[in-house]
């Protein structure tokens, strides 16, 4: 199994139901910057016409997770399904993982005095098959699933749509797939022409190779 999430970000209406559901489901600490998931907002203009893009964000559960490499105690580790997690009882609060993460996806949970982050709601996958944020989203922005299952909804979606990643240049092989809107030419104006756009067939072999190499280290 190799869990991931596809985000049809153009559907996001910034209702923050996902943020609230995450806090409620996972008992995340209260506070403005104590978030496992958040909605990133960019604003700009395209030939004088203003636009706003809403990018739902969270830990990308990277295959080459730098936060895991830098952790001195394996408090940051990768579990079955390629989910990056933190064991608070091992966290010495060196904050190296927070420095290493290209997505600012980690924060210190002061109730545990340890670093905290998204877990893809791994405690509820078996029962509900999805995350709290996906279950709550009223506009179906998020789609959680298993990249190794060819029949899963996420793979079916990725086979039909193009996608891009946040900060792909960081080389961490992230697993949040942002779906390119149907009007690709127009959407490129707001996601930068430098952003690489991928298709599933082109991307899958690369992912599989790294997954095969890395999955031996995943704690089962």
């Amino acid at each position, binding site marked *: 199994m190799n869990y991931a999430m596809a985000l049809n970000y153009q559907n996001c209406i910034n209702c923050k139901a996902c943020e609230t559901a995450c806090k409620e489901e996972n008992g995340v600490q209260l506070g403005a910057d104590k978030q496992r998931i958040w909605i990133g907002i960019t604003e700009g203009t395209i030939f004088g016409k203003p636009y706003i893009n809403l990018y739902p964000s969270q830990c990308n559960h990277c295959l080459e997770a730098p936060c895991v490499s830098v952790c001195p105690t394996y408090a940051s580790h990768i579990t079955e399904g390629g989910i990056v997690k933190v064991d608070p009882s091992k966290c010495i609060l060196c904050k190296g993982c927070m420095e290493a993460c290209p997505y*600012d996806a980690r924060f210190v949970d002061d109730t545990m005095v340890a670093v905290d982050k998204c877990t893809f709601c791994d405690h509820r996958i078996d029962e509900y098959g999805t995350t709290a944020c996906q279950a709550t989203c009223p506009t179906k922005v998020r789609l959680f699933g298993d990249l190794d299952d060819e029949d899963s909804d996420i793979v079916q979606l990725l086979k039909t749509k193009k996608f891009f990643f946040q900060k792909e240049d960081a080389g961490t092989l992230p697993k949040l797939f942002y779906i390119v809107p149907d009007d690709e030419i127009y959407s490129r104006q707001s996601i930068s022409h430098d952003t690489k756009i991928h298709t599933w067939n082109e991307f899958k072999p690369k992912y599989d190779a790294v997954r095969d190499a890395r999955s031996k280290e995943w704690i089962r």
Partner: protein
Amino acid sequence: MDKIEILGLEINKVSIFGLLFNKVMIIAYALLGLAFFGIYEIIEIRYFSEAANAHASGLDPTNPELREAMRLAVFGTVGEVNREIPWTLFIVNYMYMIYTGSGIIFLVALAELMKFHIVEKVAASFMIAGIAMVFAGLFTIATDLNILNMLSMFTSPNIGAGMWLMLPLYSVYIPFVLFEIYLILTNKRELARRLALPILVMSIGVDLVEYYIQAKLFSMNTARHLWTEFPGLMFYFIISAFVSSLGIMGVITFLVHKGKLEYKELMGLIRKAMLFFVSALALYEVFAYMAVDKDWTLIILFGEFKTMYFGGYILLTLALPFLLIFREGKPFLTVLASVFVIIGGYIGRYIFVYGGNANPMTDRFGTGYEKYDFYSVASNFNYAHPHLGEIFIVVGSIGVILAVYSLFDSLFSIGKLKDNH
């Protein structure tokens, strides 16, 4: 003064009062008092500040502590660590103390290998100052970490992580340096003579390993391009540390060895070494920022850090010292330059640590910076002032240096010139 001899070490027979309550120790206690006040503050924020989660509000909605936690969550700042700036003044001080202290030890070993006999005579005082700074750095970092979980460093080690490598590093480094100091202080001349060369060579080797691990600690943070793209980070750390180390050596020479015949010669040597490394560091600064990601370069050279960089770091570490010591003059000019490089070097470390975090990670697609919150303003610059407790701990860490140096000086008279080899 009467002495007792243990394992070839001549130890001064000094009273407990003289050992623990001399002038230097009193100053050290005052500084350590500040540090402990800072530690109290940090512990209170870290372990006892009001924090709650969504579940708590459901389980016990009338709890007054929960109400305070909710108030802080909505209107205040929650917790000790800022999400966008995880490494702060603790790391600045740790870097400065450890690198500068190790630099002193490195330079002394190098000078001894190169047969600078004048350095051999004062090696004890320099080496003790160096190891005292290492202790001050470790004292700072110990207060930064969650000590309650430190056992995991032994039970669940990730031996590839720079942060973990510091554990075996200092477990070896500190006893090794103390053994070096023992060889300098001992009157077992034959043993010292036989071990001198291998120990010196190993000392330089251990120092190089230390700087390598320290560079790894920063360069593993793939997202912080100031740290990952700074060319030859290990060598930058070494050269910049040497400049600060020579500053400390200059001040020690002035304070401890001023009245001695060798003072002028020693200051002359420090001046030459400082001139060399200040020039090398200047070249590094010129070329390094050409290689670093422009987002970070612009913030440091032309953005919010420019005043601190040019008016603090460049002026105090490079420009003024260069002008003061470029031509051979009075030793006092070297002392003045030493003070400047000590202060400037600290500012340099501050810019390096805070600069690494200054460019927000939310610049995701090259179209601008994202906001985390609908109502906030997108920022292209991250900065947060250190906590008062942090500042107290950093100031207090100077007390650690003074206390260690004073204890060694009272027991072994390290300020006296020795003919070791």
